[in-house]
């Protein structure tokens, strides 16, 4: 693809020339020569510290070096996790959490996609609303929690709103930037076939902006997951956050730790799933820069 070559060389241009030649030669050797064994080593190296921590922690708990009321052994935490999985409470709470997360993201992300595309297409609309959005963006969404509780009580509404607010900005910013980065030439191709405005949007602009939009969505889903934790900690009758609060009230550190593990694992799994989806949807792009 000659266009990609051009942008690549243009981007590398002056900065690339300034770079010290010996440094780039060293980089070349490292990446070409010892990539496979080095990667394996690095992979294993990453596990050394966590495994060591778990072993030390378990030993300390067993020999009574730490107060197991405040820091139960890892085996205890996993036992608690297993029990919750077996009696089904883990899955029910997880389902509630995921439902909130999806609902909040769908509302916030959907609005952001709409407004981002609108402001990307129309300068007037951007002038009208972008300043307001940028101002609101600087409000930390966690700071909204007391306000939302006072306005909407402790039900589902304030939780979903908080997640929606958190999801909004990354999707908005990336959609706007994505639409603005669309190659003008592609739009002219659509125009030459007398595409309507809707056709231009659906068949040219949105597909061309898709890589950036997906980046925004992935980022937003991550932030929405954080917002979910905060929302469930403020008060909830269900969800992983609720389980965590139960653990805190009963001074069950094992439950608190188990719920944190669930939050972290679920978040990681979602990120992996999204990356896979992204790779599939953008295969026309990944196939090029793959490996």
């Amino acid at each position, binding site marked *: 693809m*000659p266009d990609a070559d051009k942008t690549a060389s243009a981007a590398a241009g002056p900065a690339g020339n300034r770079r010290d030649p010996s440094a780039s030669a060293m980089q070349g050797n490292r990446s070409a020569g010892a990539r496979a064994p080095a990667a394996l080593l690095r992979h294993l190296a990453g596990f050394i510290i966590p495994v060591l921590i778990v072993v030390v922690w378990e030993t300390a708990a067993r020999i009574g070096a730490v107060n197991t009321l405040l820091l139960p052994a890892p085996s205890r935490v996993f036992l608690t996790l297993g029990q919750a999985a077996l009696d089904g409470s883990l899955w029910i709470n997880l389902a509630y959490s995921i439902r909130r997360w999806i609902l909040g993201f769908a509302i916030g992300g959907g609005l952001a996609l709409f407004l981002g595309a609108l402001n990307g297409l129309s300068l007037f609309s951007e002038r009208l609303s972008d300043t307001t959005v940028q101002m609101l963006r600087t409000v930390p969404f966690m700071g909204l929690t007391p306000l939302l509780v006072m306005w909407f009580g402790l039900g589902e509404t304030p939780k979903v709103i908080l997640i929606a607010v958190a999801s909004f900005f990354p999707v908005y910013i990336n959609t706007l930037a994505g639409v603005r980065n669309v*190659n003008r*030439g592609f739009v002219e*191709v659509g*125009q030459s*076939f007398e595409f309507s405005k809707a056709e231009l949007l659906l068949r040219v602009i949105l597909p061309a902006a*898709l890589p950036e939009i997906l980046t925004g969505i992935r980022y937003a889903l991550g932030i929405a997951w954080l917002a979910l934790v905060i929302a469930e900690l403020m008060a909830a009758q269900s969800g992983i956050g609720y389980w965590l609060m139960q653990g805190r009230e009963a001074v069950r550190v094992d439950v608190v730790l188990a719920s944190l593990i669930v939050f972290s694992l679920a978040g990681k799994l979602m990120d992996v799933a999204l990356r896979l989806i992204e790779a599939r949807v953008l295969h*026309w792009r990944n*196939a*090029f820069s793959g490996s």
Partner: protein
Amino acid sequence: MSQFVSVRNVSRTFEGRGQGVTALSDVSLDIRPGEFVVLVGPSGCGKSTLLRSIAGLDLGFSGEILAGGQPVVGPNRSRGLVFQEARLLPWLTAGGNIAFGLRAGPEEKRARVGELLDLVGLAGFEDAYPHQLSGGMAQRVAIARALAPRPTILLMDEPFGALDAFTRIKLQDALRDIWRSQNVTTVFVTHDIDESLALGQRVVVMSARPGRISQVIEVDLPYPRDRVSEAFSRYRNSLMNSFGLH
């Protein structure tokens, strides 16, 4: 209908800092149906501006342009466009790109895409993505895409300008055959003198500052043209002279 495309007293000024730049100054040109006309000239002579005006992508001109008897007020499906960059949509396959401007059912689309891939010599590449195609192949797909809705006029803006000399000559020959078999009126912009003589029935020579037509040459050579023949050289020499190149 002896004037298929009619450009009448067209001027175009681009507003810049201070005074504007006159890209086209009182240009008039008639193109016959089925004709192959090449606009040739140095950069800044307004040849691309003229082509974009005929296409309906640049409507800031004064004067009048008629295509098929109708004034040009915007892009039209009866005028196919090929640009210097192939501008293939990277998320679509070669087949998807060719079908991009087609308004037809899936069966009809598939048939037309197959037909066009044969026409441009890319049979079997239907499912290839743009990044898998060479520059010449991408430009062949772009030609097929422009021809898909069966336009009566094909407008080409330096389509082979970014290709190497060998690929360029191959594509010139392919285009000549396509033009003859499809009987599509073609307006072709280039800054390459040899290319203009290899392709054009008429070569419209343009000069810069302000952009205007300085000369129109009827190239009285049969196709396929022998690029190393004496007659070809004579045309080349006279063109070189008209640009002040010796």
